């Protein structure tokens, strides 16, 4: 059944991206905004806008009641959560089910199981996906010590309810494990209301590689190739690429098959991403976590596959079949995304809200910029610092890097401080150009 009208429960560039995908799918769009975002570009370009609360996200973008009410009051038949905010909260699809709306994303059950690290690992393990350590929560410190001996150090103690780098402790020997275990569990309880922790192999020279999945309600599960997101700072991705150029054909295939297996095991429907670590020397792969929503970096996959991921999300939510089968997926060239943030690398990446005075974007063949910013846009202090995504596509990695460097050179932003110079340093760096970086490289080399 076709969607008629979609409430977009998000802001910024992704809200604009969804507004346009709705127009492309001939579906009406309503953007739910906080008070400070009322005049934002996505709100102005949507067919309708509705203010759902004050600037504080807890009372607007994070309020299930406000989002649901806005969808009902404006006669929407579906909600698209974007990324962040409510996108991985099972309460939203649950409320949608209860009130007869469709949720553009997986079921509450899939979000719950995919989002719980321990359950997701157990499902992954059962589906034959390497999890690098345990798939069960540990009883106590002594159980942990026994298990650690079997797995071998170094290890990470991770919170079952954690994610994105939060709730993990590195231990290199039994002493560190002993002294850290109870604290780690206590902190997990305090931070997430869930004290369960587990052990994971720690790879200190690994790449972050993830697989984009699309799955429809008719059993179609397609892996749209992989992305390398090793260039990150404090678990925040900064530069992403597709495909992951440093892994071999066999690893590409293993990653894709693992991701599809996991999606099938979760009865997954929607767009999702399965994250892995790949050991740089052994090419061993280890399952990290599953993100049950559209990813910030989805455009690099769009560039190399030609598939419009957000439109596919809308089609899947409408009960349609995927527009592409696994055998039709092919990777064309190489794409790189740089995240332009309002933050000051010179002051420890302190965010820098303010008003954009100058905003000149690069133009040219193979260059795409996804942004909600215009001259005069005010960057509110309430939300994240992403200003724009620069996505560059080229016939191969070397030319994509060269184009990215040029495009960054042509970017001009005034009125706020950005990380543009850091991005330029990254793409110019010999390690990045030679593709010999790992997940800790950016912090060690450039920040």
């Amino acid at each position, binding site marked *: 059944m076709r969607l008629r009208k979609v409430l977009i429960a998000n802001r910024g560039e992704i809200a604009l991206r969804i507004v346009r995908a709705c127009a492309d799918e001939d579906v009406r769009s309503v953007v739910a905004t*906080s*008070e*400070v975002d*009322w*005049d934002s570009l996505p709100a102005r370009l949507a067919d*309708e*806008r*509705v*203010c*759902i*609360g*004050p*600037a*504080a*996200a*807890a*009372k607007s973008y*994070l*309020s*299930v*009641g*406000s989002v*649901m*009410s*806005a969808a*009902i*009051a*404006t*006669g929407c038949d579906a909600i698209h959560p974007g990324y962040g905010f409510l996108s991985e909260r099972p309460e939203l699809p649950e*409320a949608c089910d209860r*009130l007869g709306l469709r949720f553009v994303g997986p079921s509450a059950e899939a979000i719950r199981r995919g989002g719980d690290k321990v359950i997701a690992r157990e499902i992954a393990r059962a589906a034959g996906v390497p999890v690098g350590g345990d798939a069960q929560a540990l009883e106590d410190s002594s159980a942990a010590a026994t298990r650690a001996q079997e797995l071998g150090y170094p290890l990470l103690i991770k919170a079952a309810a954690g994610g994105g780098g939060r709730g993990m402790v590195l231990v290199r020997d039994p002493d560190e494990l002993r002294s850290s275990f109870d604290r780690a569990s206590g902190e997990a309880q305090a931070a997430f209301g869930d004290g369960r922790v587990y052990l994971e192999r720690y790879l200190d020279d690994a790449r972050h590689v993830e697989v984009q999945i699309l799955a429809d309600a008719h059993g179609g599960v397609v892996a749209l190739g992989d992305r390398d997101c090793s260039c990150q700072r404090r678990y925040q991705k900064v530069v992403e690429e597709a495909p992951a150029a440093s892994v071999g054909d066999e690893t590409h295939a293993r990653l894709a098959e693992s991701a599809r297996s996991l999606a099938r095991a979760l009865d997954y429907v929607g767009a999702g991403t399965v994250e892995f670590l790949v050991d740089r020397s052994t090419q061993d792969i280890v399952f990290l976590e599953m993100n049950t929503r559209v990813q910030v970096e989805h455009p690099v996959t769009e560039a190399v596959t030609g598939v419009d991921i957000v439109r596919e999300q809308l089609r899947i939510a409408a009960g349609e079949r995927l527009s592409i089968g696994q055998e039709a997926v092919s990777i064309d060239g190489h794409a790189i995304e740089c995240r332009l943030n*309002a*933050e000051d690398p010179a002051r420890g990446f*302190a*965010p820098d*809200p*303010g008003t954009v005075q100058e905003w000149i974007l690069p133009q040219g063949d193979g260059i795409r910029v996804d942004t909600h910013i215009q001259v005069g846009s005010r960057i*509110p*202090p*309430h*939300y*994240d*610092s992403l200003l724009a995504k620069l996505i560059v596509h080229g016939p191969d990695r070397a030319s994509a890097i060269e184009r990215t460097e040029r495009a960054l050179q042509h970017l001009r932003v005034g009125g706020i401080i950005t990380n543009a110079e850091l991005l330029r340093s990254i793409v110019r760096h010999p390690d990045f150009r030679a593709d010999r970086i790992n997940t800790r490289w950016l912090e060690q080399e450039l920040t």
Partner: protein
Amino acid sequence: MTVDIAYLRKLIEAFEQSDWDEIHLRGEDFEIRLSTSADEPAAASAPAGAAAPAATPVATPAPAGNGSAPAAQAAPVNAPAATGAAGEPVVSPSVGIFWRAPSPTSPPFVDVGDEVTEESTLCIVEVMKLMTQVGAGMSGRVVDILVANGESVEKGQPLFTIQPT
């Protein structure tokens, strides 16, 4: 567009069956406020995580229906008005959101009358998901709290008044 009466009915029904405590929507030409009590709603509570107190729902729909656009501005910033309390100000290190407690369910760091030391944390200023703890920087007693929880603050804006000891 105005709100379809069928949608409004459905919304009230959904609200009555929910644990949502307060709903306030404004469109181009409508305004809807539903609340579990007849009182004005409290201000925003604390960073992240929606609190969900259950209460007997009392729907009070109030669609405005006229063509007035909603206010595009956020909560007003409290001016650093002169207060009766004498003492030293503690100012905000940056623009951001003022939070008196570390989480929605925690008690505030300090209240008026509390004794603090140089190391005491007084509040959090949140800017783009970065939480900065603001310390007292002096020993003394909190004599005034100048900003309401959850409000926007400017860089250099006085947040607390402390009477040094």
